[in-house]
């Protein structure tokens, strides 16, 4: 196959989306009863599971304890079956540690940590199926899980990737598009205030194009927000009806 055409003359990407369109997002909150908060999200074929424990007392060494706010502890992992070929991924490989760090930074910025001094919030995210935009999916999943756990946040954290191919910014890259090797930008946004929680870029991009790509990414983040908000509302609806039923009974 000679050089995949990522954007056709008609403006379609390989999977039939147009440049600014997101992949289909489906999400559910409260998938596990044992954890304090949990969520499952699918963005196209990328599937992630997030679980939140806490806030609780610091476990392990007390030296990590912070006196003015809570510690956000994150862990990112990929299931061995998440890629085309099964691959053992021991914890602590460099890619996952980097992801872990990014998640931590993102959520430290979003969670109102000062409300829980001397405590700890654990966020565990696992990629069940990887098809591009792993980081963004994880952030979105974690947001839902944190909301499910009832931990106060400044705002939703919504993340989306954006690429730049043939002079056009593309939103929400799939694996095929990522693998082509163009510039890729991952943005985690607090959509209401337009504040950036995290911005990462993995290759060179001319300054002139940066704004357009950023715009595309933040537009995508806001679209994600709309979907997540919808999910949260539906979940609440469901919950209240259930609660209502229970009280009625």
């Amino acid at each position, binding site marked *: *196959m*000679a*050089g995949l*055409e990522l954007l*056709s*003359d*008609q403006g*379609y990407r*390989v*999977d*039939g*989306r147009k440049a600014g*369109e997101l*992949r*289909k997002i489906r999400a559910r909150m409260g998938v596990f009863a044992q954890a304090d908060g949990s969520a499952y999200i699918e963005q*196209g*074929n990328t599937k992630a599971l997030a679980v939140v424990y806490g806030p609780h007392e610091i476990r392990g060494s007390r030296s990590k304890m912070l006196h003015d706010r809570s510690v956000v502890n994150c862990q990112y992992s990929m299931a061995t079956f998440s890629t*085309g*070929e099964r691959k053992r991924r021991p914890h602590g490989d460099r890619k996952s540690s980097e992801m872990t760090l990014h998640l931590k930074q993102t959520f430290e910025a979003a969670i109102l940590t000062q409300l829980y001094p001397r405590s700890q919030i654990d966020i565990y995210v696992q990629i069940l199926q990887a*098809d591009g935009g792993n980081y963004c999916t994880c952030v979105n999943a974690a947001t839902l899980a944190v909301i499910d756990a009832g931990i106060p946040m400044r705002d939703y954290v919504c993340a989306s990737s954006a690429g730049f191919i043939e002079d056009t910014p593309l939103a929400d890259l*799939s694996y*095929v598009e990522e693998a082509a090797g163009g510039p890729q930008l991952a943005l985690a946004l607090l959509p209401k205030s337009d504040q950036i929680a995290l911005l990462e870029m993995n290759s060179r991009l001319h300054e002139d194009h940066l704004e357009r790509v950023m715009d595309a990414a933040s537009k995508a983040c806001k679209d994600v927000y709309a979907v997540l908000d919808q999910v949260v509302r539906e979940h609440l609806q469901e919950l209240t009806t259930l609660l209502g039923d229970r009280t009625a009974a």
Partner: protein
Amino acid sequence: MLKTEKILHLKARGRSVRAVREHYLREDVRCGSALCLTCPRDGKLLSEDLTHYVVPDCQILQDYLEVLEFPELRGIIIMQTACQSVQHQRGRRQYKRLCSLLRDTRHDCILFSNEFQNHAYLPREMGESALAWQTRCIYNSCVWYYQHCQKKIPVVMVTEDKSVIRQYNTETQEVYVVSFQIYLETFWPNLKGALELYKSLKETHRERELESREGNGKEYPEHLPLEILEAGIKSGRYQQGVLSVNKHRAQLEGFVRLQGLGGKETDIQSDILIYGTKPRNRAIHGDLVAVELLSRSEWKGRNGALCENETDEKAVDAQAEVMPTGRVVGILQRNWRDYVATFPAKEDIETQGKNAQRVLVMPWDYRIPKIRISTQQAEALQDYRVVVRIDSWESTSLYPNGHFVRVLGRTGNLEAEIATILVENSISVNPFSEAQLAEMPSNTPESPWQVKPEEGDRLDLRKTHLVFSIDPKGCEDVDDALSIRKLPSGHLELGVHIADVTHFVPPNTYTDIEARSRATTYYLADRRYDMLPLILSADLCSLLGGVDRYAVSVIWEMDSSTYEIRRVWYGRTIIRSSYKLSYEVAQQLMDGDLEPLNTEMELHPLKQDPVRLEQLLWAVGKLTEVAHATRMRRDMSGALELEGVEVRVQLGEKHSIDDLVPKQPLQMHETIAECMILANHWVAKKIWECYPQHALLRLHPPARQEFFQELKECAKARGFSIDTRSNKALADSLDQANDPSDPLVNQLLRMMATQAMSNARYFSTGSYTEDEFYHYGLALEKYTHFTSPIRRYADIVVHRLLLAAVNKGPKDNLLGNKDLEELCRHINVRNRAAQHCQKQSTELFQCMFFKDKDPDSDQRCISDAVIYGIRTNGVLLFLPRYGIKGAAYLKNIDGLVLACKDNGRCHWMPGSLQRLPDRIVVTTQEAKSFSYCLFDHVTVRIHVQSSRFHPDSIRLEIIRNRPHSSQEALPSASNPQLARSELVKEVTRTAVEAQLAVEGAEELKPVEHYQEYRQTQGQSLYSMLEELWDLALLDVSGA
């Protein structure tokens, strides 16, 4: 927006990988029709005044894109499905062409992204073939399109597949499915051009299909699996052999030399021709392939014309003589090695597409196809020679895939070019490792190496025998010495003493393993790479004068008058060589000239010692007599009398002009050679008797008669007849074919005889029957190599066998038949490599010598030449002055022929050529004709053709049809000793100077280096005689 999933099975690195891709379907796909009211009307639209829309299916789009490019054809809707099939199956070039067609606003065609349209798209069903699905999908899209346009305009789907027409034609009203031909005929009856183009395309497709039976998108047919090949070879359906590509027509001609006929009666005697790259089917020079013969009507002849690789091949002129032609059906054994290659020039890289990491590099060897490698250093390595390895060659790829290994150096740099030659011959000559050198005994002035007393079972000849060696001047690695004396019984005792290398190199030590892998010492034009570390080869094993050395000896007792051999003794000895003579000195002594006593340091003491002088003189004289007698005996049985003149030709061929001066080789050369042959012969007999199943011998198969054809024809031109029925007859007739007016004639004939012969080779006796052991050239029924263990590994093996046979060496380490056969094959291969390497390095030096000379002004570039072969468009020339063989054209690319004026000067003129068996006749337009006959002398101008990718080559151009007369007047020619060594010196010097210019003022060490390397270098007539048989490399190219 709907989401579905497509499951694809992708091939990644040979493995099948399951990949899941998302696929989104939508309603709002722009249709691009002007009649549509709902879709947005932006971008390219089909015009409004059309009677119908036409939709080509995948096959049409792939094969007949050219027809669709006719601007008269309008209203073409290209479905995305079809478009993608073009991209995947026809490659990037045709896909780009299609894209540019779609972008072209003048052309009335659009792309409809049917696969993204919710209703037009149909998912592929389980088990459905790709083609069937594509057709179904395209048809469905046509129907959708028709309905989308409110059924205002009929849609015609064109296809080549009749079953598709049957299946779909009547399914929907006004959506027609017809064949392309009918479509063109009915809808565009006035467009004759399109129809014709369609028909011609169809014809070529049909042909191509026939050619590559299952070639759907593949460049080459698949190879058959190994089991089928093996069964086919057993049943005789396929032939098995090694592919060798014609260097001069690498694109077209390859030959498969059959092997392992193993008793099968086949009617194929000659090689099988593989014509073109398609039938060659991805085999590369040197691969072991299985070949299927084509039917006799498809057989082709080989091209007799001279040709350059660069020029395109014209239609092969009707050749009467066809030879068996076949095609490769499978490859039994790849024989890939490291290849030296050069990157294309910068301009060419850029044209190879935007993906510049994939580069086609051009190998140094003409016979190897271009190799596709991926690298990012393409530009940085522009002018470097690099080593490349081939990884794979898929049937879908025109060229093999490879990868970059390492850099050798800049093109044109002497060291880089030498390294190139070494790599091309798969020779690796790393310095000896610490571990190897640690095994070596030491011999320093402080602690000199001494004979150990425990070696008491050796026969001590130090006191009893007068041992001396005769070698070329300046030789360091003396591996043979001689002795002769009268026994009290009245018999003569002749001894040949060979350096005992096996004493220092026990089996399976590091040194032994290294020596085995090197197999021989490599001699290049300006340097050599030893098989054994220097301490052995130049010191401890070298039978130098005046020091004690270990030896393995063969001692014969012979009758003093008839020289019949009565007894023979083999064994380990200790000797001390009394004199180290050179051939010239020995000859002088034998002729009774005592002058060397004054000039040679070593012989000074003899002046005061008439008894010992007398002894030496007698020994030398007697030795000559004995050698002469054995030689006569061998001649009777038909040994080829090739050495005398032949060796001079070899000298002339490889070195320079020594042989222009008719110089009779010294009798002494022959004497030594004969003694060595005798020793080899007797050792061969002994080891064969003791180990009939695993002795290492050397055979020389009789030459194939058809190879003598050219020799016979040439000789006929001068009125000689050559009888090649047996080696004796050949030797006799070559003796008679002597033209008193031109000694070169005889030389050339002998040279051709040598070329016609097969190669001598080592073998293990267990693998052949006894009557195959015969050595054709020497006329001996058993022969081996025993006398040069310092520079040949075979001799080391023979030493071990011999010592085991006479109970003086370990027996447990001897190789069995199978291992020995394997080893022999290895040694034979390495020997071939050594010869190629030597030849190529000589050519390199020749080219470098002529490179910086201006061919128009420098007199040294003008030389005398003799015609020794006739081709349809040129002649083959031999330049005795420089020992160069080459071809000269009589017809150039513009079709002009080389005609001569009355004064002998040659000019290019329009005319024609006619080839006769012994001459080539040039007829100009003025009806004048000239002929170039065999053995005519002409004057040629030498110039060097440089090439970016390949080795430089020497080009010859005839400038006069008379012998070059002013030779004596030339300063360089007046000195007839501008020998090869001088040529080498000159080139080395310039290279060194160039290097110095770069590196700044350094010591002139390389020059000393050169001095150090002056060693035997095959100068010994005996060793050259040995190599002579090997040099009979048959150049199948014939040019």
